[in-house]
């Protein structure tokens, strides 16, 4: 174990962090849309949202990644493994986030919305000013959790050749014959990233005046 190894793993950590940040962010955007569909008045939209959430939560991420990695070239989209990895991670997390957000919306105390209606807010104002902010406050802890989940799940992108922490540790382990040191150090990097996400979530929670968890 030399500093070179730690450096290479740190580069892998940057890749892992990048993949996680992009997929969480894009996943949130898609999750909001899917959540809106699941709360929509149109039954086909609700059904589509249900199937979407059920499928992407029900299939192991590894299988999803393999599917996308092989499917994209077949339908004429030839992209590097990292794009397939991003697509897989994003679809997976978007389904989880949609479900979390839906829970937030459904659990808003009706009295809070009624109070808004009584002071004369219209439907759009109720959504933008009352319901969405409250739902976000309710779901922030779950979203932070989701961030940690996707951080760990992103280790699976190593199977489609993306050089994240896990892939780097694998390469180093086979070139140095020191799997214990390499994978243990990889674990430490994941723990460090976890701490960063948790701290960030707590900071955001304080900004929003949430009770500490």
């Amino acid at each position: 174990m030399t500093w070179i190894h730690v450096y290479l793993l740190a580069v892998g950590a940057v890749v892992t962090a990048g993949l996680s940040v992009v997929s969480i962010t894009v996943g949130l955007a898609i999750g909001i849309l899917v959540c809106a569909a699941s709360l929509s008045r149109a039954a086909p939209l609700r059904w589509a949202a249900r199937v979407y959430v059920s499928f992407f939560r029900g299939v192991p991420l590894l299988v999803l990644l393999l599917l996308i990695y092989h499917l994209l070239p077949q339908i004429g989209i030839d992209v590097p493994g990292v794009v397939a990895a991003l697509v897989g991670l994003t679809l997976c997390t978007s389904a989880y986030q949609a479900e979390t957000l839906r829970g937030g919306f459904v659990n808003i105390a009706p009295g809070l919305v009624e109070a808004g209606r009584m002071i004369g807010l219209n439907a759009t104002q109720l959504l933008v000013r009352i319901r969405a902010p409250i739902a976000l406050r309710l779901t922030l802890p779950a979203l932070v959790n989701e961030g940690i989940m996707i951080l760990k799940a992103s280790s699976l992108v190593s199977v489609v050749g993306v050089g994240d922490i896990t892939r780097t540790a694998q390469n180093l382990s086979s070139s140095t014959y020191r799997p214990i040191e390499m994978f243990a150090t990889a674990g430490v990097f994941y723990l460090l990233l976890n701490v960063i996400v948790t701290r960030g979530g707590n900071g955001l929670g304080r900004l929003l005046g949430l009770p500490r968890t």
Partner: protein
Amino acid sequence: MMDLDALSDAFPEILDGLWLTIFMWLAGSALAPLLGLAVALARRFGPAWVDRPLWAIVEVIRGTPFLVQMFLLYYGGPFIGLDLEPTTAGLLGLTIYGAAYFSEILRGGLIAVPKGHVEAALCVGLNRMQIIRRILLPEMTLLVLPASVNMFIVLLKETAVLSIVTVPELTMAVTGFGSANFAFTQAALVLALCYWSLTELSGLVGRALERRLDRFRIA
């Protein structure tokens, strides 16, 4: 199109893979909560000095990817005299991984049992073991059911990761077939549908179970 002859040739292997997946899942689902319960009970009722180290182990397992843990166990194990068959290593890894999560779920359940229910048991004269066995464990089971069902489904999905350390379960069997016949996409699609059905099915069973236990819940 998928080569049907090739598929029928590979079918027994794929079926074996499916059985192994189900076996690993059920065995892990039986062992992980037991080990998790032992950890939860030790942390809650054991001597104070066991709490810190157990907390640290649980947090490390919950904070790192299952894949990295499996690599450590499977490739690192032989260096410390732990030379395991892939399937044994897989079951061991799955159990330890699941136990860490279950210990937190069950510990939360133990804490969530209302204090008054334990006090009532003390007043009726039940002793410590009786209170754990007759009051805390059953009430906890009720409280942790939804989270546990979730966790069982997580375990099912994590069994797919075992293919990377060459456990010949469903994912390995199907992708092996796919690479032998250049039918990756079809193979992956079939695989996805298999897992989807399994997770949906277990979700249905879990929700039915929750409904059955609803009458025990005091609003």
